[in-house]
């Protein structure tokens, strides 16, 4: 008696009791589908976040000033940033990020502006993509040249055209304005927005050298946040530590723990950890429903054994051995669980995409998840099927034949 024979027999018996078989599977379906949905959404979230982080830069370290302890003299100056890049061997890029709200006027139009200032390294650190022109260079940074890179939507709104390289633009606050030359246009990162929203309503995003920004707004020119990028993954830690050391030396504040270096990837690990624990927890709760489903399978298999006592008697009378009967019922419970598992997998994936589109997470379905789901549902079928199957196999042939 081979496996195919058994599977055929089991399918026939499952098919002859369609409704009941489906209801039996329901527990497994609900269990597997909720586990799949939770896990693939969780993993999808992790992937999305990881992707975002990798775009910003896997080797990026954020140096921060603890503003609860720091005095004004502890803040990081533009000269500090320059020294960081020159003196610390592992640092490839370094830039502060200043963010200021201001105004931008073209001959046609006036607009709210969101101005970002950094070194020329901001181009790499922020992973900026240009549609036209170029980013400002070191010389322009050093000299504090009035050059600006503006967002694509700002170009359209301010000049009614896209390639505005070479145009002039007044940028500043209500009190002080200065004439800038546009040297670059940033590719629109989110295309969807510019189509859907009127670009006139979006603030203009403008990049300029931090030196220029400092002059323009008459700022002190010190910051609490500097991004550095290490030259390799291995040197992330050292670059951060050396940067902190150098800053402490320059400001003479060693021991006060003013500066902190935090690799962005480490933050990512933390987020992923939390997300992982959360996913595991919710999946575990969902897995309990799988156990309940398993108990349902056992229950129905016990009913089925009782109902089919006479059939078992007949089979034994014509020569079925203990193993034949055991295997027959076990196959049936495994197939019920497996079909439940496969349906659960389908519903789970569909559910993950459905929920994901609402929550804005694209689910990630790993082959591992799929394999584990199938194996797990088979295991449930074996575990909860073994007792009813043994009960069937051990029936006394003559007692079973007499059963009405």
């Amino acid at each position, binding site marked *: 008696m081979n496996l195919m024979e058994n599977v055929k027999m089991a399918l*026939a018996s499952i098919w002859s009791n369609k409704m009941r078989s489906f209801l039996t599977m329901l527990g497994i379906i609900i269990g597997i589908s909720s586990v799949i949905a939770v896990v693939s959404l969780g993993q999808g979230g992790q992937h999305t976040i990881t992707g975002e982080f990798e775009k910003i830069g896997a080797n990026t370290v954020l140096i921060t000033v603890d503003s609860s302890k720091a005095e004004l003299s502890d803040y990081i100056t533009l000269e500090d940033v320059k020294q960081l890049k020159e003196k610390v061997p592992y640092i490839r890029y370094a830039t502060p990020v200043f963010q200021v709200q201001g105004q931008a006027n073209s001959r046609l139009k006036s607009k709210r502006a969101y101005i970002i200032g950094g070194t020329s390294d901001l181009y790499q650190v922020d992973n900026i993509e240009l549609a036209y022109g170029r980013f400002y260079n070191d010389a322009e940074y050093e000299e504090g040249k009035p050059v600006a890179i503006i967002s694509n939507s700002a170009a359209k709104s301010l000049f009614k055209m896209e390639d505005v390289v070479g145009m002039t633009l007044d940028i500043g606050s209500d009190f002080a304005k200065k004439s800038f030359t546009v040297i670059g246009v940033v590719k629109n990162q989110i295309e969807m927005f510019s189509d859907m929203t009127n670009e006139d309503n979006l603030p203009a995003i403008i990049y300029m050298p931090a030196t220029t920004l400092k002059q323009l707004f008459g700022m002190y020119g010190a910051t609490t946040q500097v991004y550095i990028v290490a030259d390799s993954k291995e040197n992330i830690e050292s670059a951060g530590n050396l940067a902190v050391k150098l800053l402490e030396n320059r400001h003479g504040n060693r021991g006060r723990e003013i500066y902190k270096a935090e690799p962005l990837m480490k933050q990512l690990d933390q987020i992923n950890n939390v997300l992982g624990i959360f996913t595991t927890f919710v999946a575990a709760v969902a897995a309990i429903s799988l156990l309940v489903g398993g108990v349902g399978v056992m229950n129905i298999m016990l009913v089925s054994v009782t109902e089919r006592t006479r059939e078992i008697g007949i089979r034994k009378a014509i020569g079925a051995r203990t193993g034949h009967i055991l295997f027959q019922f076990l196959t049936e419970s495994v197939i019920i669980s497996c079909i439940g598992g496969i349906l659960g997998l389908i519903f789970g994936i569909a559910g993950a995409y459905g929920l994901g589109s609402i929550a804005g997470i694209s689910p990630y379905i790993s082959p591992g998840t799929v394999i584990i789901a199938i194996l797990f549902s088979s295991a449930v079928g074996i575990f909860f099927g073994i007792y009813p199957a043994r009960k069937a196999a051990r029936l006394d*042939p003559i007692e079973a034949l007499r059963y009405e």
Partner: protein
Amino acid sequence: MIRIENVTKVYRNGEIQLTALKGVSLHVKPGEFVAVMGPSGCGKSTLMNLLGCLDSITSGKYILNGKDVSTLSGNELAYIRNKEIGFVFQSFNLLPRMTILENVELPMVYAGVPARERRARALEALARVDLSERIKHRPSEISGGQRQRVAIARAIVNKPSVILADEPTGNLDTKVTVEIMRIIQQLNDEGVTVLMVTHEPDVANYAKRIVRMKDGCIIDDYPVQNRTVL
């Protein structure tokens, strides 16, 4: 072939004990056709179940084809039921969810016969009981006589040496009874040993030998005079 010596069978239901067979001895030679008769409750079915290795004897000895059956395990008995014995029951005992063909194939499934050979042998067995149509139907879709013929086909498909039939015509009318008896006589003519329980003297008259029981004992055992031959 079949030899039982001083066999007893005691049923125990908690406190209550019932001795259904009180020391029965019987010897059946190959090719015999024995009808077992006796009043209701005298132990005929009990005897058949013991001979068919469906139930175990309480004491005594049972030798089937030279083998002492009383010492065998459950799975060894299943093997004997599969290979050496064909059962025909009063209530047919076909599996309702399987087709007729599948029912006849089932003993060969347990014997490990490959699918193609199974099909051929099942068709052959069905042909021998004159049933070549409706074989893709379920048992509930054919008549009682046809069902019993299916049961006979299933009983002979593994070419057993013995057929045990417990009131095979008990649920059938006279006309159909004759058909069934013709088939059983044919099988016997081909060399199969037959033991058959019946209440009706007319049916017993198809056999070659009659064993009479009463109260768990054999009280008479004689060859049939003026046997009905079909």
